């Protein structure tokens, strides 16, 4: 042993010098690289100081998956105001306060086509607008786009009725003749609407596969496909043909897809992002506030139970007393905390985040299990009853919500029988469900959401409800009628809304204009953003 020790000692000196040298060289190289990189960055920053800055936005994949391109919008039925506002401009623009003003259209008004009020609308395009491929936006190009959009099979295509007609009148005027009335057309055709008013170039309309890898609109930026990595990083550069160059405030806009909210927060703190959206994940909100970031949130949807009267296996839900009992049996604040503390708030309104919601509904079904039991007894179910509840097994929050709802309904004598489905499609294809939880996206365009063609609408059997809907859809100012309809719906408990779901944004001081409150409900538009 002694000999080995002495050998080790003898051998120590030479290698030690080598290790030290290697370590020294490695550290020096690293420091050199860092210094070079930092110097390079500083030089680049100094050069760019005079030029426009880059805007970097963090988004979770869950938010981005719907916004790949406008061709998907008709199919997915999802809106992505910020992403679309980069590459696409709209006929009208909704200001943060809800006022709708002309953008690509200088004016718009209803006319009577002879088939009824609010079925004819005409608008005039402004001059000098070009798509990102350089072709001009004319009435003919707009009509081509409207015809293309109408032929898609998505959530918004029923809004104008079957076979709406679009006609170019001269070079700049377009006339729309609908087969159903629409009373808020300028909003529908706006940048927070249903994308009817967001034209794409004739080349893309003629060949929709082009939408896959390019932006085809008249917006201030266009996608730089050469440096973008789908599902990871999307780089936008200014559209050289944009009609209002003064509105382009950034040399580049980069959208980084960052699935982890903690990574988004770190990137914001490191100065790599200007602002970020973390969907409804509130796990990092406290840390973001502590880091001095502005935390913005706006309700973006709601958790609801659909009490489906049409299920053939039971008639219990046709009894309004049973439906009311379910509503009284739910402790909404507790359930909201259960699925997502911080990002969720109790709600009883079908559209808890829109201008037609009424705060007075909130107290309509205060948690009262004793009253729920009494109502069930009154309905003839004093011994309780069993209901099926369809839920999507892959959604963890659905399972959590189910467990909470099941526990509270069990306390009043209602046993829930969960039926697991792998997807909404399998639920739709099986009419045998009674009750389901959904993560419903609330739309500004509630009129389209409430249309009879919506797959989750379960109440058309109620003729009074239908009459209220038809009255509202034809009204010049529909808000009072919508409220009346929703109040009736709420009282009847067709939808039992449990809680609203909030979207959360973290904003650094480097950017202004991220305002998600107000009637636009979470819409952030690129031209409203500017460097601080």
């Amino acid at each position, binding site marked *: 042993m002694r000999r080995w020790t002495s050998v080790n000692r003898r051998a120590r000196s030479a290698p030690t010098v080598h290790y030290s040298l290697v370590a020294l060289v490695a550290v020096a190289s690293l420091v050199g690289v860092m210094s070079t990189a930092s110097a390079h960055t500083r030089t680049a920053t100094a050069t760019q100081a005079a030029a426009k800055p880059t805007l970097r936005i963090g988004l979770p994949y869950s938010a981005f998956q719907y916004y790949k391109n406008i061709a998907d919008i008709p199919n997915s*039925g999802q809106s992505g105001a910020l992403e679309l506002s980069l590459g696409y401009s709209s006929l009208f623009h909704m200001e943060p306060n809800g006022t709708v003003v002309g953008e690509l259209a200088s004016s718009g008004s209803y006319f009577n086509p002879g088939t009824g009020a609010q079925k004819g609308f005409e608008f005039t395009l402004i001059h000098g607008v070009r798509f990102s491929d350089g072709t001009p936006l004319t009435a003919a190009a707009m009509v081509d786009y409207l015809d293309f959009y109408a032929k898609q*099979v998505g959530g918004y295509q029923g809004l104008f009725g079957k076979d709406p007609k679009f006609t170019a009148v001269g070079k700049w005027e377009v006339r729309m003749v609908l087969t159903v009335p629409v009373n808020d057309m300028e909003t529908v055709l706006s940048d927070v609407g249903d994308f009817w008013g967001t034209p794409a170039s004739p080349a893309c309309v003629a060949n929709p596969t082009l939408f896959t890898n390019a932006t085809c609109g008249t917006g201030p930026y266009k996608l730089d496909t050469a440096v973008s990595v789908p599902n990871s990083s999307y780089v936008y550069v200014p559209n050289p043909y944009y009609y209002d160059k003064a509105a382009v405030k950034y040399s580049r806009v980069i959208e980084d897809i960052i699935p982890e909210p903690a990574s988004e927060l*770190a990137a914001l703190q490191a100065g790599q992002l200007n602002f970020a959206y973390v969907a409804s994940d509130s796990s990092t909100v406290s840390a973001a506030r502590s880091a001095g970031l502005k935390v913005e949130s706006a309700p973006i949807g709601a958790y609801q139970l659909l009490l489906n009267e049409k299920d053939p296996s039971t008639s219990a839900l046709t009894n309004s007393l049973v439906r009311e009992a379910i509503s009284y049996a739910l402790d909404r604040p507790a359930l909201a905390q259960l699925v997502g503390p911080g990002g969720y708030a109790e709600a009883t309104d079908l559209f808890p985040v829109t201008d037609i919601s009424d705060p007075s509904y909130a107290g309509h079904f205060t948690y009262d299990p004793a009253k729920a039991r009494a109502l069930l007894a009154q309905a003839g179910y004093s011994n309780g009853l069993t209901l099926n509840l369809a839920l999507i097994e892959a959604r963890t929050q659905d399972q959590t919500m189910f467990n909470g709802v099941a526990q509270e309904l069990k306390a009043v004598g209602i046993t829930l029988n969960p039926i697991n489905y792998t997807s909404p499609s399998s639920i739709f294809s099986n009419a045998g469900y009674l009750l389901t939880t959904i993560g419903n996206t609330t739309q500004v365009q509630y009129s389209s959401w409430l249309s009879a063609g919506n797959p989750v609408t379960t109440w058309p059997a109620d003729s009074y409800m239908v009459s209220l809907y038809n009255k509202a859809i034809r009204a010049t100012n529909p808000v009072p009628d919508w409220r009346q309809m929703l109040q009736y719906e709420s009282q009847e408990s067709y939808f039992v809304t449990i809680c609203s779901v909030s979207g959360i944004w973290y904003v650094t001081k480097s950017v202004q204009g991220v305002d998600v409150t107000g009637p636009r409900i979470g819409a952030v538009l690129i031209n409203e953003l500017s460097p601080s």
Partner: protein
Amino acid sequence: MVRNPVVRVVVRRLYLAVPLLFVVSALSFLLSSLAPTNVLDVLLPNGSPAQYVALAHRLGLDQPVYEQYWHWLVHALGGNLGTSYTTGQGVKALIVQRFPVTLSLVVPTVVVMFLVGVGAGVVSAVHGGAVGRLIDSLTLVGFALPAFWVGAVLVSFFAVKIHLLPAIGYVSLAQSPGDWARSMVLPVVALSLLPIAVMARQTREAMMDVLASEHVRMAWANGIPPRVIFFKLALKNASMRAVTVGGLQVIGLLTGTVFVEQVFSLPGLGSGLDTAASTGDLPVTQGIVVFFTVVIVAINLIVDLLYAVLDPRVRTS
């Protein structure tokens, strides 16, 4: 009949790779099909039943799984790995675009793993004593710390606190070598910690075994200089185990890239695979899994060739 044993090993490896690729691709396809995530829900979150049926038909998802796999296999054999369901991007193009990022992560990690891991193992074995115990303790720490946690801690200090390195993102080597290096430092450190610990521990054990062997004792007795004994006799013999373990660690790194690329938002194959798996994007999942399998076959081949270089018995057996 191939007489050269090295060539024979290469041919045998390549021959075995064919059924391996087939089995892996079939298993991957089956498991992806059984996953609860339905790509139709991703593409049509609020779609009508008719839309679901139409899209399922367009994507071929209304066919039995074995028929879907057969179609995929036939096209793959023809060099067509398909198109992403969610982005419309060709899978081959996706791999070409994302592989350099993963390579940028794995290659420096492998270099660091061998340099630091083998170096620490050698130092620990040669010096023993306090230095050896310190290195042993550090390797234990390396075993205990999960990469994602290490990544988060590194980011919070180097990116958030002192703003020295970026928290997320990737800059290509061609675009700016300096920024590329900066963007890779934290991910490489996070990814290499465990492999370094494994390499150090294995190298130390191997070195200790060799140093205790008869021929090394004879070398000491014959007055051969320590440097020759340590680096020519002991390390060369110990390197067989280091190469074996290193090969396995490199394969393990491919799994590690999935986590590290997510934490640091690197647009590589690992994050691409994670996204594809979570959205039910079967063509992308298949393409990346098969590509990773090919890489693993290549790594095993390289390890076999290194055996031949390091051990004359392999060349002649």
